[in-house]
């Protein structure tokens, strides 16, 4: 098995605040997870959860308080490790005296590329992000979306093994987002690892293989995107909406084994029920039991619990706790 691209073990970070820097604020509280090569990994969490702090530690911009972070087999912040990372920061700012070509030349050289390599790859990347026709325009004329795409190009310029993207689709229109998703998919197909930090949970759900959820510096979940919901409420990740006709006690008896979230009478012997079921087998079993108890099914609809629902539910549970 290949070594993890990112390996985090009991990572803590405490900031010192106040005039005398005596007050400690825990930004990360002993988080541990790994990111495997070739996967798209999402880091989720509300504002102040510690996501940006984690990325800063990963890239050596901030120092950890304790624990271990390995990046491509080297301690986080190591210059050789950073050479293999492409980074797109949130709120990217490219100095206004640049155009796309000079910006790529500048950041490419900071990554250690030669002029020839920059010219060779830069044109292709600008085509890829859709900026080739505006390459010589000053960045001061760029929209936020164009800047974001240029940022993505510079992150890809030195052919990194790991891409760390902080809100990569921020400011992009739907077409732009779709393009970025396509690019990320292509990169994944090329075997690159992508570490994504985004507030757009739908995006994460669409792109990521696995996610980690941080809240108040603690890791709440790490695993595949489609199991976030089951982790949140125990088992269920399907939401089923039923409208049935028949005897109420018998209907309830048929559904006794499952989680009934809501039960609402619609008329004489007509009821509406909201169920949470773990999978399609459970849905089928429910239908079989209803029919065996002579209950008519007037309508049935089902939908998978979204990442956003699960995320919000997780935070609510955290707050209640």
């Amino acid at each position, binding site marked *: 098995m290949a070594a993890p691209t990112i390996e985090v073990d009991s990572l803590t970070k405490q900031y010192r605040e106040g005039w005398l820097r005596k007050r400690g604020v825990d930004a990360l509280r002993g988080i541990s997870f790994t990111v495997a090569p070739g996967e798209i990994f999402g880091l989720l969490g509300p504002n102040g959860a510690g996501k940006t702090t984690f990325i800063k530690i990963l890239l050596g911009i901030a120092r950890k308080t304790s624990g271990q972070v390995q990046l491509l087999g080297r301690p986080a912040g190591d210059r050789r490790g*950073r050479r293999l990372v492409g980074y797109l920061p949130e709120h990217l700012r490219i100095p206004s005296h640049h155009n796309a070509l000079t910006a790529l030349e500048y950041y490419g050289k900071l990554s*250690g590329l030669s002029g020839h390599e920059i010219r060779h790859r830069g044109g292709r990347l600008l085509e890829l992000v859709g900026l080739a026709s505006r390459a010589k325009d000053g960045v001061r004329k760029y929209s936020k979306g164009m800047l974001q795409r240029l940022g993505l190009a510079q992150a890809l310029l030195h052919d990194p093994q790991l891409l760390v993207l902080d809100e990569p689709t921020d400011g992009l229109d739907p077409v732009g987002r779709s393009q970025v998703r396509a690019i990320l998919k292509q990169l994944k197909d090329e075997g690159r690892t992508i570490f994504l930090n985004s507030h757009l949970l739908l995006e994460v759900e669409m792109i990521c293989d696995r996610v980690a959820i941080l809240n108040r510096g603690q890791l709440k979940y790490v695993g595949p995107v489609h199991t976030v919901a089951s982790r949140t409420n125990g088992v269920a990740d399907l939401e089923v909406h039923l409208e049935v006709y028949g005897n109420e006690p018998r209907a309830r008896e048929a559904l006794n084994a499952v989680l009934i979230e809501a039960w609402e009478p619609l008329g004489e012997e007509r009821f509406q029920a909201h169920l949470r079921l773990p999978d399609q087998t459970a849905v089928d079993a429910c239908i079989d039991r209803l029919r065996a108890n002579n209950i008519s099914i007037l309508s049935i609809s089902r939908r998978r619990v979204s990442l956003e629902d699960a995320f919000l539910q997780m935070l609510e549970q955290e707050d209640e706790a």
Partner: protein
Amino acid sequence: MRPYLAIVKDSFREALASRTLWILMVLITLTLLALAPFSYYEVLTAGLHRGDITDADDFIQQLRSSAQETSASPARHIWSLLDEKTQEKLQKLERPRRDAEPPERFAYQQTIRELQDQLDSLMRREDFFHAESWQGVNFRAEARRLTTTEPSKLSREEIGRRNRLALEAAFPELIRISRPKSTQFTYLGWNVSWPLPFGATQMQEQLFPWILFVLDWVVGPVGIFVAVLVTASMIPQMFDAGSLSLMLSKPISRSLLYISKFLGGCAFIVIAATVLFGGLWLILGVRLGIWNHKMLLYIPIYLFLFSIYYVVSAFSGLVWRSTVIAVAVSIAFWAACYGVGSAEWAMRSFLLEPQRITYLVATNDSILTLDEFRVPHVWDQESRTWQEVFLTEQQQRIRNQFPVPLPEFVGKAYDSSQDRFLGIQRDFGGGRKLWVGQGSDGWRRLGGVDAPSDVMGVFQEPSGGTVIVNQSGVQRVVGDPAAPKKPARLFGLEKLLPQTQLFEDVSDNLPSFAEPRAASIDARSGLLAVYSRGEVYMLALNENDRYGIQRQTRLQKDEDEPALVAVGANDLFVAFKNGDVFEMDVDTLKVRRVNRLEQSSPPRFAHASPNGRFVAFVFHNGALWLWDGDLNKFTKPRIAGQGSISAISFPSDDEVLVADRGTRVRRYQLGSWDLQQQYAPEMELLEMVYRYAVLPLYTVFPKPSELYRTSQFLITGKETQPLENDEDDLSQPQAKLYPWRPVWSSAVFVLLMLVVGCIYFERQEF
């Protein structure tokens, strides 16, 4: 290195994209274009300008007297050319008394100005020179050629020149000797000045220091201030969200990132300074013929100067991430440097340097000195202090009110047989007086009789006599200058007259010694050595007890170069302002060697020991060199205070007195340099504050405002700088530039600040 070069290159790109840089470039270009039309051309020096008559009273007197004469003379001819109104005014003219009202003084000066103006116009006329009237007048070679040429074959310019030379020859002591060529400045082809009384070479020499002054004190500070304003935002901008994170995520060192950003900031000044100084260098070379390639050194010097301020601005930007604070801290830093530098300069200039001994002589029972303010002192062994002596009441009054220099002593000598000091001192009114004082009389100042003009020196003859060597020859002091003056009535007014004739001209057919000039005496043989405009004369007493030329030679040297003369037993030395010391055989006047003792400092004093074996040279940078006639070589004695030596004297054949560190005098055994005795006053409170507080602080503080010293040294090659107007008078004080001091202290500061900045940046979390 690639990432860091990219950062520097990016700064250049940023600078070129900056609107401010282009505005500055346009301003620089406009300034250069405005200067470009300046030019000059040379003309023959003619006419008479303000200040050319050195002694107007005497000159007018000679003109007036000639009116009564019957024989032809230059004065009579000139008098005849003056209009009647002027003649009438001159006949009535009397020098106003000292207590005269300002209108009376003004009227007197006005008449002199009118005379000068009229002479100036007369000297353009062909008939100004009249051969018969000038018969018997000694002409210089140039004058001989012009006065013997038919006037019709002379151009108007040459006639003007001939007339000027004729006037100089007729009144050698009263009319300033002019240089052959004058310089006329033009702008866009128009004359914008009157002909300045020096040729192109002298113009270039005189103009260049002014150019340096403007560059150092006007262009530099303004340019640096603008540069600091413009670049102050570069480091704080680096901390913009989304910019710094991206930079720090790259595989680069934070320290080198900071240093590269710092160097990149300097790109701005490189571009601006290259255009400015490159342009000025071209204009000075093409238009004024001043091709001084060293001027291009201003580019790196300015870069260094800028880096001193920028390192502060960058560090402030790093810590506070604010452009406004970076600018404010830079200004505060400038103020601090300026404050410390000014405090050091003020205390040194007003407290210590005025007390520095510039002349000393061992008297029969003490030591007599003069300091930089020409205040005489004697050493009081009991109180171990220098006691002021030999001051007139007026001088005492002035000293009590203002710490200003007293007028200079143009000649001084100590007569050990009578324990008497003789000094010819200028007075505040412009005259010269011979004063004497005796040790037994507490050095009370006596005499005050008018002394000859243009004195080169006062010397003690081996026979015990005192002679004064001046422009027109040698005068012997024959009366008693200390004797009280006798009241006499003259034209109804009571005047104080000396009892007897005090000076006797003992010159035997000596030429007029034109400037630059210097004289010295061999205390053993009594031979007088005189240097004047490239000529060296050995004057000896003849059978008539008068000084005549015994030998004469011409040195291969620019005749405008000021020099000092010293005579040893077998050796004669002429030390020039540029540092060349001509070593000559005293019997043949053949040049044996030309030595260069101090590379970058002119000599200030030269003295020979009584037996002539040793000849000492004190340089303006405080260095002492000693010629040993027995060993035939120069040495730089390894004694305390070498580098701060300001005066020397030989009390005997085997002892030497050396003044160093301002007010300390040490008596050494010659040869072994064993210390015999020391005369050093206790340190006063202010001096202690200077030495133990101000000076250490100043030493460790960066000195950006003193980098002009470095630039001036690199460009002129001179380690010292004249403080007064008459920089051709080598005895006048010169400021030691210490050219490398601001470089070292500032370089250490810049490095230190960069290291601190790097450590801060490395340790900081973002």
